[in-house]
Structure formats: structure tokens, C-alpha cells
């Protein structure tokens, strides 16, 4: 059995990243490096109003005073921030009015990724915003959505068409001074998605953004802003891939979610950036700041993430539970293999009364990877009768990997209850034996057990994603047991 499983492990590590191709698209770049001029260039390129440039410059000046943090349980090669191209955009021939005018190369790229813009529009009833390198290339469905008053467009378009909304909400959840990478993003972000659900509207379709890094030597800095007004509901999905390259590429994004009274936002992501090769060469550095605020009472924000890619994942999708009775949820499956590293988890800041949060985190580490869960649950003094339940389990596959848990619990009143539990183990031999003696081969048995292990999280995903996530899980891990 030992040698069997070793073989299987070997097979698994041979699995190639199937999204690693490069598309030959005519791309426009900003000059390499970062100065105030770069920022002015980006801002001018996007024809932004004055307040945006000011915001960027303020962020940049603040960023200059900051140092890259080193507290995470990660080994990060030094990043030369002057050796990155901060803006890359597929060259546009003219303004697009329909899908048929999108560069066929681009369409082919997304088709290859399984994100058929046209098909998805018709069949799945999902509105897609496709972002390649730094800019949004096409948003489907926006006309239909506008009937409901829903705004779903690229961030640049929102800046042009809805500057008031952008001005009101941008930076209100993640201020530019929040952290090193948030400051960098605020200075140089190029595009992203903007989504606004007006009062009382339940968004009839799932909204989805697809991010793709294509150009070499670039960093991707996008920014997503989701605002759900009183009583609104939206389910938002995000997916991402990148080509296979030897050098590391930086992805430093910001996601901000604002949920007003009685609103609900469900945010799901399947992250599949290029993880680097088997020796740990190349891959994406995924350093993302994601945060949502439940501003009004009874608001709800739910994060679901499946993390399979990136050389290094460093992110903590968080909830600020400001409104009374508001709810925060975090469901995560983080898989690391080969030399991947992940330091991910969540922060639940309970500020309002009777606020509730649930954290379910499942870490799976294989190969020589290190997978850390880091989470904060803070119950402030005024957050009376608050409740948190956290469970973060780790599964270790192979004797060379590491799994770590850093839960931070801070409670400041007597009426709240916080529970945290975690276990770390390998796949139970009993379970394997049981499956095998029922005639299920080793590989399927492990797939079955891992899937069962991650089930609690996977079932939170919208259907389209659940299928993709399960496939990804099986690609990353099937059969790996040490």
C-alpha cells in the first residue's frame, strides 16, 4: 500500500496546470517601474476624474512610507516593485457594442478557459465581467440587469458613469492606508468589477467576474466593489487563471463589499492562479485584501473560497459586523501541493449586538507545501450576545508537508460565546480500508474521502462553481496519501 500510494502521489504531482497557455494578444503596457508618473499615466490612460488621481497619489505617498510585512508563515522571495509593469491592457480597436466586436483572440482565450462569454450568457443565466490583465474586456448581460436598476460593469466604466457611487464607497471598507498591498493596489489599480444592487432588489442572476493574467512581467491589481442597498441580494462569483511562467507574478487585489440593512451578499471564488512548477519555480503571488462590512442591521455577508492555485496565497476575507443582528460567514477549502504556500483565513469583527459568525476552514496540504489557517474572532465590548463558531481542520497528505493553525480569539464581554475547534490528521487508514474492501480503488477512495472532507464548504458554492471546484480538487489531490 505504501508503494502504491507513493506511485499515486507521483502521478498526482505530474498533473499539469492546464490553463498555462499564453494568448498572443496585442497588449499595451505602462513603462516598467513605479513612480508618481506611472500613476498619472494610468489615471490619464483611463481618463479618470480628478478625485481618482488624488486618491491614487495619496495611496502611493502612503505606500512609500510602508514596509512589506513579514509576519506571515510564508517564505517570500524579495519583490522588486520597480521591476513590475503596473498596467497592461489588450489594445482596443474601438469601443465595443456587442460581443461580436470583441477581439476573436480574446474570445478564444475565454472559450479555452471554459468561460464562453456568449454561451454562459444564454445557458447559465450568469452575467460575466471578463478581466484580462488589467482591464475588463467585456461585461455580458448588463443591459438586462439595468432594467432592475442593477449596475454591473467594469470599475473604469463605473468611474466614468457613476462617479458619485464610486466616490462614496471606494475605500470605505479597505482604506488605502489599510496595509502595504492595499496601499499599492489603491495607487495603481487598473480595473475590476463594480456592482450595485439598489434597494429591495434581488439580483435575478449570479454575477461573475473572470480574471486572467496574460502578459509577462506584469502585476495584476484589480479592485472589486460590491454595494447592496437595503434589502438587496446578490450572489457574486470570481474565477481566475494565469499562464505558466518561470518568474513570479504579483496579484494584489482589493475586494470591498458593503451590505446595508437587511441586505445579503454571497461571494464565492474559485482561485486557480498558476501555482508554479513542481520545483516551486514561478507562479502567482496572490496577496489580496478582501473585506466586507455589514453596515445595517440584519445584513449578511458570506465568503466561500476554494483555493487551489498560486505559489503563495496570503489573504483573509473578512467581515465587519457593525449592524445589529448581522451575520458573517466564511467557508474555505485551501489546497496546497508541491512547493505552494498558503497563509489564509478570515477576520470576524463583531461590533454590533447579537451578531453571529461561522467559520469553516478545511486545509489540505500535500507534497512539500505549507498551509496555514490564520483567523481572528474579535467580540467588542458592545457586541453583546454575539456568537461565533469556528472549525478549522487540516488534512496532511505526505510526510513532507506542513499544516499550521493560528486562531486569534478576543472576547470583551460576558454575554457572548465563542467556540473554536480544530484537528489535524492524515486520511484515516480505517476509512481507506473500508472503501478498499468494498472494491473502491485507492485513488477513488481518497477522492471520495477528500471530497467528503471538503463537502461542508463545497455545498456552499453556486452550482456552476461547485462542479469546477470538485474537478479542481480531484486534479490537485486525488490519490495523494502518504
Amino acid at each position: 500500500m505504501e508503494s502504491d500510494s507513493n506511485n499515486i502521489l507521483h502521478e498526482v504531482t505530474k498533473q499539469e496546470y492546464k490553463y498555462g497557455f499564453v494568448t498572443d494578444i496585442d497588449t499595451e503596457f505602462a513603462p516598467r517601474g513605479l513612480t508618481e508618473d506611472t500613476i498619472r499615466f494610468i489615471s490619464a490612460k483611463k481618463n479618470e476624474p480628478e478625485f481618482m488621481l488624488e486618491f491614487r497619489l495619496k495611496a502611493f505617498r502612503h505606500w512609500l512610507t510602508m514596509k512589506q510585512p513579514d509576519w506571515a508563515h510564508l517564505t517570500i522571495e524579495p519583490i522588486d516593485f520597480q521591476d513590475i509593469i503596473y498596467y497592461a491592457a489588450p489594445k482596443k480597436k474601438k469601443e465595443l457594442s456587442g460581443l461580436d466586436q470583441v477581439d476573436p483572440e480574446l474570445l478564444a482565450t475565454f472559450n479555452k478557459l471554459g468561460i464562453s462569454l456568449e454561451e454562459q450568457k444564454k445557458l447559465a443565466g450568469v452575467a460575466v465581467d471578463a478581466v484580462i490583465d488589467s482591464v475588463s474586456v467585456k461585461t455580458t448581460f448588463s443591459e438586462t440587469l439595468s432594467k432592475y436598476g442593477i449596475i454591473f460593469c467594469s470599475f473604469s466604466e463605473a468611474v466614468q458613469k457613476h462617479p458619485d457611487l464610486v466616490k462614496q464607497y471606494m475605500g470605505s471598507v479597505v482604506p488605502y492606508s489599510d496595509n502595504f498591498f492595499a496601499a499599492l493596489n489603491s495607487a495603481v489599480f487598473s480595473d475590476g468589477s463594480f456592482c450595485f444592487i439598489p434597494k429591495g432588489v434581488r439580483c435575478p442572476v449570479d454575477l461573475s467576474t473572470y480574471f486572467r493574467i496574460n502578459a509577462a512581467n506584469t502585476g495584476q491589481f484589480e479592485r472589486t466593489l460590491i454595494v447592496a442597498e437595503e434589502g438587496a441580494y446578490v450572489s457574486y462569483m470570481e474565477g481566475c487563471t494565469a499562464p505558466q511562467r518561470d518568474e513570479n507574478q504579483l496579484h494584489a487585489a482589493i475586494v470591498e463589499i458593503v451590505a446595508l440593512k437587511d441586505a445579503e451578499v454571497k461571494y464565492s471564488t474559485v482561485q486557480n492562479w498558476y501555482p508554479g512548477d513542481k520545483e516551486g519555480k514561478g507562479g502567482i503571488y496572490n496577496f489580496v485584501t478582501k473585506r466586507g462590512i455589514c453596515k445595517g442591521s440584519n445584513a449578511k455577508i458570506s465568503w466561500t473560497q476554494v483555493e487551489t492555485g498560486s505559489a503563495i496565497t496570503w489573504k483573509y476575507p473578512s467581515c465587519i459586523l457593525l449592524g445589529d443582528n448581522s451575520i458573517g460567514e466564511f467557508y474555505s477549502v485551501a489546497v496546497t501541493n508541491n512547493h505552494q504556500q498558503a497563509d489564509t483565513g478570515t477576520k470576524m469583527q463583531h461590533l454590533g449586538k447579537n451578531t453571529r459568525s461561522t467559520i469553516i476552514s478545511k486545509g489540505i496540504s500535500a507534497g512539500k507545501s505549507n498551509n496555514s489557517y490564520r483567523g481572528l474572532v474579535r467580540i467588542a465590548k458592545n457586541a453583546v450576545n454575539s456568537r461565533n463558531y469556528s472549525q478549522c481542520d487540516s488534512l496532511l497528505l505526505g510526510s513532507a508537508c506542513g499544516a499550521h493553525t493560528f486562531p486569534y480569539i478576543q472576547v470583551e464581554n460576558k454575554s457572548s460565546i465563542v467556540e473554536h475547534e480544530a484537528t489535524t490528521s492524515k486520511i484515516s487508514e480505517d476509512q481507506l480500508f473500508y472503501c478498499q474492501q468494498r472494491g473502491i480503488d485507492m485513488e477513488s477512495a481518497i477522492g471520495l474521502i477528500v471530497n467528503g472532507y471538503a463537502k461542508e464548504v463545497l455545498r456552499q458554492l453556486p452550482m456552476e462553481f461547485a462542479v469546477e471546484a470538485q474537478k479542481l480538487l480531484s486534479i490537485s489531490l486525488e490519490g495523494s496519501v502518504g
Partner: protein
Amino acid sequence: MESTNLSPITLSRLVSLYETHRQQLVACDTPRLAGLRDRAFQSFASLGFPDTKQEGWRHTDLKESLARLYDYPLDPLKETDIQKVFQCNIPHLDTAILGQLNGWYVSRDVPLMELGNGMIMGSLSEARKKYPELVEKYYGRAADDTTDAFTALNTAFVRDGVFVYVPAGVKSPRPVQMINVIHHKSNLLIQSRNLIILGENARLSLVHCDDSYNHQGSFSNIVTEIFAGENAFLDHYKLQNLNNNSTLISSTFFRLDKAAGLESHYISLNGGLLRNNIRVVFDGTHGRADLFGLYLMDKKQHVDNQIYVDHAFPECTSTEVFKGILDENARGVFNGHVLVRRNAVKTDARQSNKNMLLTDSARVNSKPFLEIYNDDVKCSHGSSVGQLDSMAMFYLRQRGISEESARMLLMFAFANEVVAKIAIPELRGRIEDMVKKRLQGELQICEQCVLHCSTPEKNINQ
């Protein structure tokens, strides 16, 4: 050496003190110990006092404690009636008492006792002179004075403490009780160092008490190194009952050899600011360490338990069970760190931290942290913060038990999970009694040492 003037504890004060008094400090040192002192002093000088920006000190701010005015005599004070101070005892518990006053071993003319079975107990400074080889072999081998500022400070300045040696195969006939009493007319800075050595197959029960005698403030920086040889077993108790003006930084370093066993109990009943650094390192396979802790804090008291267990060898087992009840403005910090190294297969490590908050101004910070580099392990941790179970409360109330009694009963039951683990019956009875008194708010630091100001509720042997 003359007593220095009262002043706050600062880096510059200690640096100049070390520089002026270095000759006297190293006077009795072997070359290695003198080198150790100098190195430790260098690392302290470069580390400085920790602040809340450091991960390990995020929730414990020493600013206020360090800013008070302290006397720091480098020689023992000769002003107290020793007999009067050491009245402390546990009824019906027959122990060998090793008294320390303000960090100095109280010799009563016998600085080092040598028992018939080969056990040696007494003053560490005396042991250094009399048994240099034995001390040399262990001293400074477990303590971390390169990264931990307080341990480095202790190594640089330490002059005395307690030394206990249990030779191979010897079972100590009665528990050894270390009593560290602080009694002075002004605030005191105290640094003492203890060295406990258990040879192969040795067994020892060690009761380590920190008490204050009056309301005078103090800042104690105590380092204890404990070595347990192959198959040895140590039953360790740390009882802390200090006044609210006291700051205690207690660092205990355990090294457990092959198949050695440790059962440790940290009971914190009172204290201004208590910080327990507990580090356990397995030096061989099949070791076992069970760490239990109970903290009952009120007023503005602060307790911080930092536990680090290093599973460096395969097939070792560790358990941590820390429970606390926090009242009024008290604050509890728990930081458990279990490291399972690459080769440490078949490790079984469990962590649990449970807290009860009784007021809205009490606070808890809990961080049970697992760092695992191996797949053949069983590790789990749990942490909870909550209140008394309302169902249990209802059950008791509808049985006609008054609310106050029901509360007491449930709180006592909560604490008893830790108290019940105490293996010495007399001590268990005593702690039960003290916990009850503490929960009822009756146990306080009075004019006399707490250990004898309260009468026990029951006599164990009757």
C-alpha cells in the same frame, strides 16, 4: 554591594548596573558561566524590553509595571524576621521546604542540604561552589537567553535561587516545596534562578509557590530550568498568589529525556500581572507532558500563559488544559504553541483553553496555535469563551438551589477539572478550599501571607 536608589526599570539603568558591577556578579562564576552572563547581557542589551508590537507580547503591556519605582539590591537584605515570614504551610502536608526571601535562598545556616538518599537541595549559588560539575552540566542548557529578553536579563544578573538534585533511581520521599516570599519596605526588582535536575528513573513532587507578604509592589523575573532524565517523572505545581502590585515574569524551561513524564499544574489565584512562559522540549522518544492551568482573576489583574511544546522526537504525547474565570476588569491571555517537527511521527498533542467571563469589562485573548510538519500525527485544539450554561443553571434552580449557590457550584465545577488533577491529596484539598474562597471573594492578600490567613474548611485527614 550597596542597594541602588529607587528608580524605574529601564534598559539604561540595567546596562550601567551591569557594567559597574560586572566583577562582583561574575566573582564566583566558572569561565563558562561568566561567558554565559556576558553573552546574555549582550543579547538583553540588543533586545531591550519587549513591547506590544511583538507577537508574544501583543496583549501584555509592561509599560506601567516597568515605570514604577523599584529598589534593586544585588545582595540579600538583612532586615526581616525570617521565622515570621515562613509560617506558611499547607495543613497536614509534609514537605521539605526551600524558602526564598526576595529571591534569595533562606539558609537558616544550612545553605545546601544533602540527604541520605543522595538528594541535594538548597541554594543555587552554594551548589555552584560545591558541585560545579553538576551545575555546569545543566545550568543554562535549557533556558533561551538569545531571543527571550527576560531570560537573558536573568542570566546576566542572577545571583541565587534554588537547586534541587534527585539522583538516578531515587524517589523523593516527600514533596519539595519552594516558597518564594517577597517582603520589603519598598518596591523590589527580583531576579532569581532555579535549577531542578532529576536523574534517570527519579521521581519528584515539586510545589513552587509565589507569595507576597504585604502590599508592597514587586517585579520578579524568575527563570527555572528543569531537566528530567530518562524515565523520570516530575509532578510539578506552581501556585501564584501575589498582591495586586506585583508583576511576575516566570519562565520555566522543561527538558524531558526519553520516556520522561511531566505533570504540571499552574494555579494562578492572585497577582497584578502574571506572565508564565512555559517551554517544554522533548529530548527523546515516548515522553509525556501534561500541562494544566487554572486562573481566577478579578480587579485589574492580568494573567498571560505562554506555552510552547516542542515535539522534537517521535511518539511523544502532550496535553494542555487551561481554564480561567475572569471577573471585573481582569484580563486573561492564553497563547499555546505546539510544534511538531518533521521527524516526530506518532505525536499526540492536544490543546484546550476554556474561559468564562463574568463581566463586560473582563477580556480574553486566546490563541491556540499548532505548527505541524508531519502527517502521522494526532493534533487538536479547542478554545472557548462563554458563560455559565443556562440549562445547567436552570436545572439547579428548579431543584431549589439558590441562584448564588448554583453559580458557585457551576463555577467550581468548571475549575475542578483542573483542580481534580492535583495528585497530592492534601494539596488538592487546600487548593479546592482556596478556589472556593477565591470564587466567593473571600481569599485576599491580607496583612499576613495568604497561606495561613485563611482557615481551611475541612481537615483532609479526619
